[in-house]
């Protein structure tokens, strides 16, 4: 990696990243892939998030679904771990709670492939710094 040598370089890199991944806090959903984020802080991992993440990766490969699976930090919903957030192109992100290995497959069958939701969705209950 070449070092970032100025604030302008940093801003250019940010712009490049955002056009590529759509990960910005501003853009609603610019990405083209399905994005799956698995909450993997210590507590999430302890309640089985690693296994859940493996299921998503395996199933997507097996079924030839174009998706990006990444880990992320704690989403704060300790009561509903493991938690997984899924963003489909053109849709708002949806957070699923109580996702065990079985439920992970069900989420793929229902939501990823058929746009049907499953029980245990966690509504976003906070403001981000962008709209506050």
């Amino acid at each position, binding site marked *: 990696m070449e070092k970032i040598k100025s604030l302008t370089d940093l801003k250019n890199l940010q712009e490049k990243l955002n056009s590529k991944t759509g990960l910005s806090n501003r853009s609603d959903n610019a990405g083209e892939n399905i994005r799956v984020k698995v909450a993997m802080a210590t507590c999430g991992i302890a309640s089985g998030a690693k296994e859940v993440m493996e299921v998503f990766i395996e199933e997507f490969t097996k079924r030839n679904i174009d998706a990006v699976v990444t880990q992320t930090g704690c*989403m704060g919903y300790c009561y509903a771990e493991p938690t997984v957030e899924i963003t489909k192109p053109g849709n708002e992100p949806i957070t699923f709670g109580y996702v065990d290995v079985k439920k992970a497959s069900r989420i793929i069958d229902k939501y990823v492939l058929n746009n049907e939701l499953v029980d245990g969705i966690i509504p976003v209950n906070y403001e981000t710094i962008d709209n506050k």
Partner: protein
Amino acid sequence: MAKIKFHFLVCGGAGCQAAKSEAILKNFQDVIMERKLETEIQVIKTGCFGFCGDGPIVKMMPDNTFYTKVTPEDCAEIIEQHIVKGIKVSRLLYQDSGNHENGSGFKTRGLHKKQIRIALRNCGFINPENIEDYIARDGYQALGKVLTELTPEATIEILKKSGLRGRGGGGFPTGLKWEITRNVKADQKYVVCNADEGDPGAFMDRSVLEGDPHTVLEAMAINGYSTGADKGVVYIRAEYPLAIERLKIAMKQAREYGLLGNDILGTGFNFDIEIRYGAGAFVCGEETALIHSMEGLRGEPTVKPPFPSESGFLGKPTNVNNVETYANIPAIFLKGAEWFAGIGTEKSKGTKVFALAGKINNVGLIEVPMGITLREVIYEIGGGIKNDRKFKAVQTGGPSGGMLTEKDLDTPIDYDNLIAAGSMMGSGGMIVMDEDDCMVAMAKFYLEFTVEESCGKCSPCRIGNKRLFEMLEKVTKGQAIMEDLDKLRNLSNVIKDTSLCGLGQTSPNPVLSSMDNFYHEYLEHVGDKKCRAGNCKSLMQYIILAENCIGCTLCARNCPVDAIAGERKQAHLIDQEKCIKCGACMDKCKFNAIFIK
């Protein structure tokens, strides 16, 4: 198969369930079946929306309409009007007090969303092991702005204006701390991140480091620039291996990208960070003890002054801030001091992260604006008390804190109000207790922790807390006399007044606070030898009800200490002297013949 066009999200949080959300789910299903809409509408049960006061909540997707206070009888109307005719049911629409459109999505629900995530803004959004995720969300731009546009003095001025106070518990104004460190002349200065999170039940610092490590690195660099330090140290407890691993990855990446090291962003500013591990002593969260531990000495506190800002790590001026404090800082420089100061109360600005635990439905990590009430935290965000039990108290401030009770439910939470209410902010553990929790036992629990963690340097803390613990043990065992209660209070005050550091000065707080708020429970333990919560085993008696006992001998055979005697087919009897109150007999009895008195 037809495609699902509508989703009804029915809140399945405990508060809404108590308000019949199950019946709402069922009625929706029935009407949908009746009208043969099952291929178009799907009804889903969700987690808590965090507006339990307006429950039960139903959210319609995709148009994001919110219906509040829905009853099972409304279901047919909602489907008839909203779905079939396309008209929203206006009487159930969420009424916002702001200028927002009725019933629109979350983003415009301004006033009613209880949480604002500033310190946790990236937790759960970015991959903490990828610096580019952080950069994509404005990462290191605050540092860039500070280095290119602001002098160190102007940087500190902004921080002072923001009103940010230390989130580790003390609440000292952060900007002022930075200014003091800046004003000391020295050839070498240090900035230290205190990640020795030790309060039982508090884990916000771990979550920040595991979810967004770069924000801490960025804020430390800003701190270095404005105080004149080119070295930073993160002091983190060794019990946090994942946080350490992610921190190391973040530091490596930041160096590769030139965001740590020499000549950062071409400005000539040099700054780098190293990690030191804490070996698990609670007192090392105290800044002087932390510094001694970093120097390889025993983790014991020393009297202030001199403050670390004047003479700290290796005798050099050292600025120590907590993880959560740091996590707020990049956001302040990106959004402005006025923005930050616009959130919170007069003297406590911004937000606080709390770890909500105990007898509460939605256990979790929350970030709320200062000034929110305990009632909102417990009953709206927390979804209320588990199993509909009665609320008794909230313990805040960990082993240094106190109990807040029913009378404090509507007090706005900030540094000063919590102290006025006999507790403190602390690092943000919030343990909710219900009627089944004994307040004497709770005080004893915290004191046991302090006794274990006292470094032993000063007598009031080392010996005093031990004696205090023994007295509490007498109370919970029903062996105390009334005079002991006065002794408890007196000794608590002595320890408070004479201990060397914050640990000892605050350790009797749980005792004093529980005595202030629940003196009747102490009296009952001593006078009536009773624990109303049924918590203190020594004060409980397992009794066999003679008319229910058929003499099957099952209890006697299962008693580990042979405390139960009785002939076959005759009522048995428990020898209270021998009984260890394990409850095995009660578990085994099939005739409900054993009860607790």
